[in-house]
């Protein structure tokens, strides 16, 4: 059987359980062995004592019985008694001889009875059992020939077992013996003795304590002698106990523990006395007999229990002494795990637990150092990350570099942070921040850096430098950062900012007092320097991209100018060149050409205005849509010589983004008319449509040109994609109808409510 304790049990409970278990088991074993040994021994002792008493009493009883026979012998030994008794058997009653013998014998018996005090009555029975003489007068003439004491008494000395005499109203014993006269049995002399003397004998104390007693029980279980306990009278009590039964029924002697006549447990010794046909009982109450033993056992048990309790207390104390520091250590560990790293286990002991606590404290110390180091590293990394975020979001170095410097100062409590940005030709731009404020960025010559020797050195060599105020001097192994020790001066780090192989600048950090700079700061500075290099490169690229974009925008404007205005003006100037001669020759034709010139210049003017709108997109959002559409029409007309009819009829209030979108759609559609349609005529219409409940605005751009097959033309070409996007952005519905040689119609319907919803998600006034 494997004894296993629940896993959840604490060490304290386990130890206590084991300890108490062992102590209790030991105590129980000792107690039970003691109990068995002592109680067995005690019983033997009591039985031995009872045996002694029983033997003593038996001897007394035997001597009493012997006394009965002896007394009869003594009566008979008197002179002439057998002769007198013989006379009584042979002489005639009333004769002188008879009377003389009778009175003589009576005197003799009465005397014997009174003197000996043993017999109540002495009487003589003739050869036929008739009572011839008795000390009790009324008993004479009785015929007792049938009694055992006569029949047996004729043969030898006989003692009849005790019996209750109705006539005497008491327990009596009859002893008898034959009377012989001249070798002839002439009768039986019998003595009736009461049991008072036997009673006294049995009651007599024999050192059996309060409950010990001896008594006699007759063969019919009748109690023969008085008991010490009241309520049990002779001859009305019958004793039926295990001991009495064994002696009376089986005629054996022995000892046993059994229920006494009164019902309590007794230790008894019983003897069968065959001569008297009685049982001698010697008993003592078990409670009393074993009282001392019990007391001893109780004392032993009490001592055992006490020792168990003491052992538990001692064990508890001992276990407490072991477990308490352990559980305190556990609590401390738990709190440290929860973040209270400054805790130490407070165990002032030199033993194993003390050593454990010391080891624990050392471990916590290591952990604390580790965490602090990690925290510092995290701090640094966070600062680097923050700077990196700024570096990627701020493109202006004049804004970024002071920001990074301030951020470093604030985060690490440095004394000062300087960033030198190298420009060409031995000059540079210095951003300098101290604890209190940042200076304006200043242009410096590299030769003027005398007051910043570290910066100058790094700008010269391109190698990082750590000047630590507490670093050991002279530790400049190969490949390591040169360190010089300077007392009472701030520690300083200067690292190069490199873009590729080129030195772009220097990052310089100083710290004073309680924050000497270390390798961690150097790491931070180098990482930041790398990020700053990216920022410098970014700024340069951004500048470049900016210039490129501006250049591209200028080129686009130039191209638009060329496409739209230059061509028209060229045509105008060519026509104007020859117009005077034409007019001279043919007035009518001259007027036609003049009209042509007018249209062309109006168109050029409209184109110019359109281009100016492109230059100032805000103006587009401010302008009214009908004006814009008319301007578009004129511009296209001037450019393509296709007459464009613009019809505007609307009273709706049109939001800016819708105006811009519709303008762009019309512009794109008219571009197509001018460039691709080859039309003779085009129209632009802007009308209210719908009804009062649901007003709508309709833009139609239509031409009678070559048209196209919508199934063939890709949706992205001819600006169709742009038109669709613009319409979608304001929630308008765009429809383009066209067939080859049947012209094109661009049709846009916009509902004010729809535009309101969709404009919320469109970009602010896209132009």
């Amino acid at each position: 059987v494997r004894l296993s304790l629940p896993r959840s049990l604490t060490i304290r409970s386990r130890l206590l359980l084991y300890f108490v278990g062992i102590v209790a088991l030991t105590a129980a074993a000792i107690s039970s062995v003691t109990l068995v040994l002592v109680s067995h021994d005690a019983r033997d002792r009591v039985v031995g004592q009872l045996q002694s008493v029983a033997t003593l009493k038996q001897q007394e009883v035997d001597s009493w019985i012997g006394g009965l026979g002896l007394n009869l012998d003594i009566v008979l030994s008197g002179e002439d008694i057998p002769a007198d008794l013989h006379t009584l058997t042979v002489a005639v009653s009333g004769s002188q001889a008879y009377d003389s013998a009778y009175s003589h014998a009576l005197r003799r018996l009465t005397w014997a009875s009174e003197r000996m005090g043993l017999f109540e009555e002495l009487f003589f029975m003739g050869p036929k059992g008739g009572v011839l003489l008795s000390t009790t007068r009324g008993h004479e003439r009785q015929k007792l020939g049938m009694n055992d004491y006569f029949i047996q008494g004729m043969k030898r000395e006989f003692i009849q077992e005790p019996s209750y005499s109705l006539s005497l109203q008491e327990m009596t014993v009859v002893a008898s013996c034959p009377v012989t006269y001249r070798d002839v049995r002439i009768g039986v002399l019998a003595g009736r003795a009461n049991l008072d003397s036997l009673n006294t004998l049995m009651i007599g104390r024999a050192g059996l304590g309060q409950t010990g007693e001896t008594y006699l029980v007759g063969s019919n279980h009748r109690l023969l002698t008085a008991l010490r306990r009241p309520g049990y009278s002779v001859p009305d009590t019958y004793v039926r106990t295990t001991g009495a039964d064994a002696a009376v029924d089986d005629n054996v002697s022995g000892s046993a523990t059994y229920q006494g006549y009164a019902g309590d447990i007794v230790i008894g010794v019983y003897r069968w006395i065959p001569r008297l046909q009685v049982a001698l009982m010697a008993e003592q109450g078990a409670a009393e007999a074993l009282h001392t033993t019990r007391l001893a056992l109780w004392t032993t048990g009490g001592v055992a229990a006490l020792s168990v309790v003491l052992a538990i207390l001692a064990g508890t104390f001992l276990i407490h002494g072991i477990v308490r520091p352990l559980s305190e250590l556990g609590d401390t560990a738990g709190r440290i795990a929860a973040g209270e790293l400054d805790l130490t286990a407070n165990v002032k002991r030199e033993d194993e637990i003390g050593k454990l606590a010391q080891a624990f404290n050392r471990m916590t110390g290591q952990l604390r150092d580790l965490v602090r180091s990690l925290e510092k590293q995290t701090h640094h990394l966070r600062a680097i990350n923050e700077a990196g975020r700024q570096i990627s979001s701020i493109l202006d170095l004049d804004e970024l570099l002071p920001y990074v410097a301030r951020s470093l100062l604030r985060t690490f409590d440095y004394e000062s942070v300087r960033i030198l940005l190298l420009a060409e030709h031995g000059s540079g731009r210095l951003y300098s921040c101290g604890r209190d404020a940042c200076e304006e960025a200043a242009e410096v010559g590299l030769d003027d850096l005398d007051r910043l020797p570290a910066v100058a050195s790094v700008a010269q060599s391109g190698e990082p430098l750590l000047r630590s105020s507490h670093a050991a001097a002279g530790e400049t192994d190969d490949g390591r950062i040169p360190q010089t020790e300077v007392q009472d001066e701030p520690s300083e780090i200067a690292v190069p900012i490199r873009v590729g192989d080129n030195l772009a600048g220097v990052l310089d950090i100083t710290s004073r007092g309680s924050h000497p700079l270390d390798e961690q700061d150097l790491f931070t500075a180098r990482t930041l320097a790398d990020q700053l290099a990216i920022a410098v490169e970014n700024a340069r690229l951004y500048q470049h991209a900016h210039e490129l974009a501006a250049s591209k925008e200028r080129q686009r404007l130039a191209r638009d100018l060329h496409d739209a205005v230059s061509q028209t003006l060229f045509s105008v100037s060519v026509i104007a060149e020859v117009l005077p001669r034409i007019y001279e020759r043919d007035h009518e034709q001259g007027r036609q050409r003049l009209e042509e010139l007018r249209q062309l210049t109006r168109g050029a003017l409209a184109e110019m205005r359109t281009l100016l709108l492109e230059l100032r997109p805000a103006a587009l959002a401010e302008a009214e849509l009908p004006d814009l559409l008319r301007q578009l029409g004129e511009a296209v007309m001037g450019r393509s010589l296709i007459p464009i009819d613009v019809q505007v009829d609307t009273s709706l209030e049109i939001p800016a983004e819708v105006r811009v979108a519709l303008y762009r759609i019309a512009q794109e559609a008219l571009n197509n008319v001018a460039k691709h349609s080859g039309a003779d005529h085009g129209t632009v219409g802007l009308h209210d449509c719908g009804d009062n409940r649901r007003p709508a605005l309709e833009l139609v751009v239509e031409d009678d040109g070559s048209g196209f097959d919508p199934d063939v033309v890709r949706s992205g070409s001819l600006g169709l994609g742009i038109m669709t996007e613009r319409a979608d952005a304001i929630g308008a519905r765009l429809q383009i109808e066209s067939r080859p040689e049947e012209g094109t119609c661009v049709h846009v319907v916009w509902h004010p409510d729809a535009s309101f919803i969709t404009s919320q998600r469109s970009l602010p006034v896209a132009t």
Partner: protein
Amino acid sequence: VRIVLADDEQKVRSALRLLLQELMKDPAGAWCEGPCLIVDAAATEAVVRELKEEMVDLLLLDWELPGMGASELIGKVRELSPGCVVIAMSGRPEAARDALARGADAFVSKNEPPDRLVSTLRQRVRV
């Protein structure tokens, strides 16, 4: 005599046609002798079509004409009409160097007054 006006802008072609017609009528200098045919071309394909149809004597070519590249077009001109005079025109004066390098006989900027075109035509071409 065949003259091709190659420009994608109809108004430019129209103006140039007017100018050429006036030049022809100029009694001071007989610029064009004999019957003179002026043809329009809005794209390079149209120019090639005219070249293939008949010899061309003068090509006024917009340097930004949509279609094939300018040097390829000049190659075709040299191949199909060896005697053709090519005058390149552009609104971008910087195109002059490119045009002359690629084989144009002369370059006229559209941003200059028409006198320049007229003098070039008179100088370079005697059809």
